[in-house]
């Protein structure tokens, strides 16, 4: 029973979604898409929120109770959740001076102030660290060890120059020299970093990416069909 019900559910929903997604007749659009699929998703989504909040609360509470290593962060997570939810939903929208309101999610609310002045700078700081790691990793990893690595290295350098205004300036300067020296032969073209970058993105990148996307899509369809028809059961957990 534990395995049959999920298999029946997956088969039924898989078939409904197949007809809702791949057919555009009025039954598919108005009934399957709007009435069944869209409404069910809302209901499932609402329960998922309840479940996730409960699960988040339980996970943190257990860690705090056991005084697991770093349990102080679990306190912070719970306090953050309660504080933000309180400002957004529970507290009244009263004026607290300096053009700010206590409750609500408006631009001048405390909720928005916390988001813009605490979460935004913290997340932005974390991500900005990437510039340093990329610089260091590029310096250590980009070595001309073989032909493939050399090609990658040269391509990376061209794209890096072609994506900034410097690439345009080099080409312009070289075109000026070209017009005075051997004007009958457009050798400055090899310095058109922006053009070469565009070509790399438009042709080799597009071709390889399309091949990958196509392969992934075919694999996705095959796996989905195997799941819908109950051939692939590993998602149920345990062993057959």
């Amino acid at each position, binding site marked *: 029973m534990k395995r049959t019900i999920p298999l029946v559910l997956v088969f039924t929903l898989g078939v409904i979604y197949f007809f809702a997604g791949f057919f555009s007749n009025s039954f598919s*659009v*108005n009934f399957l*898409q*709007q009435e069944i*699929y*869209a*409404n069910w*998703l*809302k209901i499932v*989504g609402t329960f998922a*929120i309840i479940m996730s909040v409960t699960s988040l609360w339980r996970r943190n509470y257990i860690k705090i109770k056991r005084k697991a290593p770093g349990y102080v962060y679990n306190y912070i997570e719970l306090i953050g959740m309660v504080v933000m939810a309180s400002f957004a939903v529970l507290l009244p*929208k009263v*004026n607290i001076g300096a*053009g700010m*309101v206590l409750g*609500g*999610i*408006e*631009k001048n609310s405390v909720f*928005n102030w916390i*988001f*813009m002045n605490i*979460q*935004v*700078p*913290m*997340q*932005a700081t*974390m*991500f*900005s660290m990437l*510039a*340093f790691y*990329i*610089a*260091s990793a*590029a*310096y*250590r990893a*980009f*070595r*001309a060890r073989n032909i493939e690595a050399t090609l990658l*290295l040269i391509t*990376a*350098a061209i794209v*890096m*120059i072609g*994506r*900034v*205004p*410097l690439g*345009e300036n080099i080409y*312009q300067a070289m075109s000026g020299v070209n017009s005075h020296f051997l004007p009958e032969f457009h050798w400055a073209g090899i310095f058109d970093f922006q053009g070469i970058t*565009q070509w790399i*993105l*438009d042709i080799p*990148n*597009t071709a390889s*990416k*399309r091949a990958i996307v196509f392969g992934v899509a075919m694999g996705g369809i095959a796996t989905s069909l195997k799941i819908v028809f109950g051939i692939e059961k590993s998602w149920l957990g345990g062993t057959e």
Partner: protein
Amino acid sequence: MNFFKWLTKIDRRWVYLLMAFVVAFPILTNIKGTIKKPSKSAVKLFKYIDKLEKDNTIMLTFDYSPDSLAELNPMSKAITYHALEKNLRIIGLAPLWPTGGGLGLDVIQSQVDRFNQEVVLKSYLDEIVDSPLIKKYRETNKISVENIKTNITTVVTAYYESDKKTIEVNKKLFDIMEKNNLFTKADKDKFKLNGRDWSYFGYKPGFSSIMLGMGKDIPKTIVNDYWGTPIIKHEMFNSKTKKVKSFEDISIVIDFAAGASVDYLLLYVNTKFGRPLGAGVTAVMAADYYPYIQSGQLVGMLNGMRGAADYETLIKQPGRGLNAMASQTYAHLLIILFIILGNIGYLVTKKGDEK
């Protein structure tokens, strides 16, 4: 250790220090980059938006979090400003990322405020800022000229939007302006008003159901805007002549993304409902979307900070994107320099080892 060996093992802290310097220096000294030839994909998107007619509606979706804000905010602001200048109507929402709800509001609101203040109110503002009563109010409350201009814009906009909460917060200034008939001098039609010229939904959970629903009936699916007002009360959704009902009435959807949201929107907006889709993405994921530009599924795309700089150049409104171009140039040069140094050291020491 000989010099060439040292070149392969420069302490990473030097790399970090130099990187911090080349990024910060242009920003601190306000060195700006210039773009002579904007990227092809940015031009395509610009041309598409530029040819839209007055009162056409564009939908902006904000699927990113604060960590990508530095890259995606400049481009989303540039497109929003362009749309306001073109008198297009704007719908904003965050269909996938909850954090996009707050960021999207900041983008649209800031550009609407900027537009109302800079473009529409310029002459009107100069006139009333110098009026004796406003001057007295400004001096008593120690408000700078720039801030009073912002406050006046907020109050006039709130007056036309009948936004009681904002009026309440700025009661003193509102009373002074009302008593002296200062509202009547402004031209309501030129303002960008919430509900008429733009509408913001915030984060709406349940991506698939939201997308499917908007393909049929936006007011029924979304129900309330970001502030909890039923959107059917908005002129944009109940006007007899030019109301927005479903995706059919949206001229283009533009997704600002730091994740796979463009893929999902391609499925629903473009493939299912046949509406044009544009994208503004972080540079690291841009390479993934070139096949969709070539196939025409994406109208155009802004690629990272350079994409923002391209768009700012195209609309002739320099902003953060162009500002960051100098930093990006120096940072790229530094990385290339380190790669060259590392390779010189590697090749020379390798030859030495072979001997």
